[in-house]
């Protein structure tokens, strides 16, 4: 039995194609991935992302505990601010990548990947210091992402705060259509956008109000299909595809999220070593110059030798070309290098590019 978000019936009523995404019944597309993708780049899209997990860490030692668990520096945070960070195992492998919202000095809300909620929750409980607790609030939040250049105009009609004063990676508690929620200026599309967290009981009301407010601005319901092509064009890593417990933040081009100088944290010793010795491989963007598409797991060759595997591959609606990400040996991870991707029975040509694609 797949889990359902509070928007499940709405999706079905408006004709979404549903899919099993990590045990959740989620909309993959409504009218077409390419059309939805373009709506987000040019106008605005509304995504149900309620499958994401919310874990509250609170107590006297909340900050100290998290500083020990995450790789980024919690000192950058104050109430109203957000950071993106991996959490790593002692060997440097990435357990999850998440957002940390500082609610108060002793209260942090962690937004984690749907498939990792239980794993993260257990890891947190095992590593929190005394007088601190973790609470899994995932069922207590509905979550929508409103993404695209028109998102500010749409949301402004419904909220009581001035969105011009809400900077990137900041959030505010506010009302939208009379419902109390967290508005955060974040997203997974690379466009201006907001993520909204609120009580599941208000799901239908908020969806309808946003759709109504967006009707003059080209707002479209968007599914996970467009979410994936949008994030890939911007080179945002997807947990389970591009990063997992067998990859470290350095090879995943996430070195900016590792604060080696902040003091001790889980994985630090190993990450110091990795940073010093450099990685053997690097997460690298490529575009396909032949006809065809690369998919997760396809093998990559150059000069007859296997040099890596595709971690994400899709079609870029903006470039009208196939694009992807792969871990490549360092000497091939340079823009301009020609590589070949094994697609079923044949090899197709691709080129390493600098990225992001858009």
């Amino acid at each position: 039995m797949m889990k359902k978000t509070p928007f499940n019936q709405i999706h079905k009523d408006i004709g979404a194609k549903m899919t099993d995404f990590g045990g959740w019944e989620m909309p993959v597309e409504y009218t077409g991935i390419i059309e939805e993708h373009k709506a987000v780049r040019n106008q605005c899209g509304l995504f149900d992302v309620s499958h994401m997990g919310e874990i509250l860490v609170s107590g006297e030692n909340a900050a100290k505990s998290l500083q020990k668990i995450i790789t980024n520096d919690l000192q950058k945070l104050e109430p109203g601010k957000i950071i993106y960070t991996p959490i790593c195992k002692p060997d440097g492998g990435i357990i999850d990548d998440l957002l940390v919202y500082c609610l108060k000095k002793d209260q942090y809300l962690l937004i984690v990947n749907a498939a990792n909620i239980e794993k993260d929750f257990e890891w947190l409980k095992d590593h929190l210091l005394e007088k601190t607790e973790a609470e899994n609030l995932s069922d207590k939040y509905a979550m929508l992402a409103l993404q695209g250049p028109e998102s500010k105009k749409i949301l402004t009609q419904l909220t009581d705060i001035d969105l011009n004063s809400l900077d990137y990676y900041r959030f505010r508690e506010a009302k939208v259509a009379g419902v109390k929620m967290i508005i955060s200026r974040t997203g997974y599309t690379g466009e201006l956008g907001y993520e909204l967290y609120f009580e599941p009981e208000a799901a239908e009301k908020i969806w309808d109000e946003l759709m109504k407010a967006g009707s003059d601005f080209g707002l479209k319901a968007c599914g996970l299909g467009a979410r994936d092509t949008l994030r890939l064009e911007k080179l945002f890593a997807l947990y389970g595809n591009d990063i997992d417990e067998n990859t470290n933040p350095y090879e995943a081009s996430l070195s900016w999220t590792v604060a080696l100088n902040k003091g001790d944290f889980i994985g630090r010793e190993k990450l110091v070593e990795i940073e010093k010795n450099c990685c053997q491989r690097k997460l690298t963007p490529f575009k396909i110059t032949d006809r065809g598409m690369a998919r997760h797991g396809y093998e990559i060759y150059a000069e007859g030798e296997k040099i890596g595997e595709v971690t994400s591959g899709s079609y870029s609606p903006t470039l009208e070309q196939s694009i992807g990400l792969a871990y490549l040996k360092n000497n091939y991870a340079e823009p301009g290098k020609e590589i070949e991707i094994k697609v079923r029975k044949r090899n197709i040509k691709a080129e390493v590019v600098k990225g992001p694609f858009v």
Partner: protein
Amino acid sequence: MSVKDDLYYSEDHEWVREEEDCLVIGVTDFAQDELGDIVFVELPEVGEEFDKDDSFGVLESVKAVSDTFIPVSGKIIEVNENLLDNPELLNDDPYGEGWLIKVDPADDSELDELLSAEEYAEFIEEE
């Protein structure tokens, strides 16, 4: 989802149209809708021969890759090369400009094993 009356259908969601000197084969409206936006098409070579139910091509949509299976045995006499540069024709007009191949059938009686429009409509109802 549209199902056209004058065609034969397979359970793999291909349609077959009888013309005077050949059979025209494509994928159904149901199939293109399931796949979503199709962005690449791989077609066989003219002259290639296939047995019924062999994979003869590949349709690649943004979200998935799917083989196409030939509903009758025969030899390829023409492929719709227009699709290589305009794969969206498959989404826009699956029974018309989105046709895939023309086949010289090896055994006309194989057509009798395919579904009628009515049977296919029932079949996709259950899918």
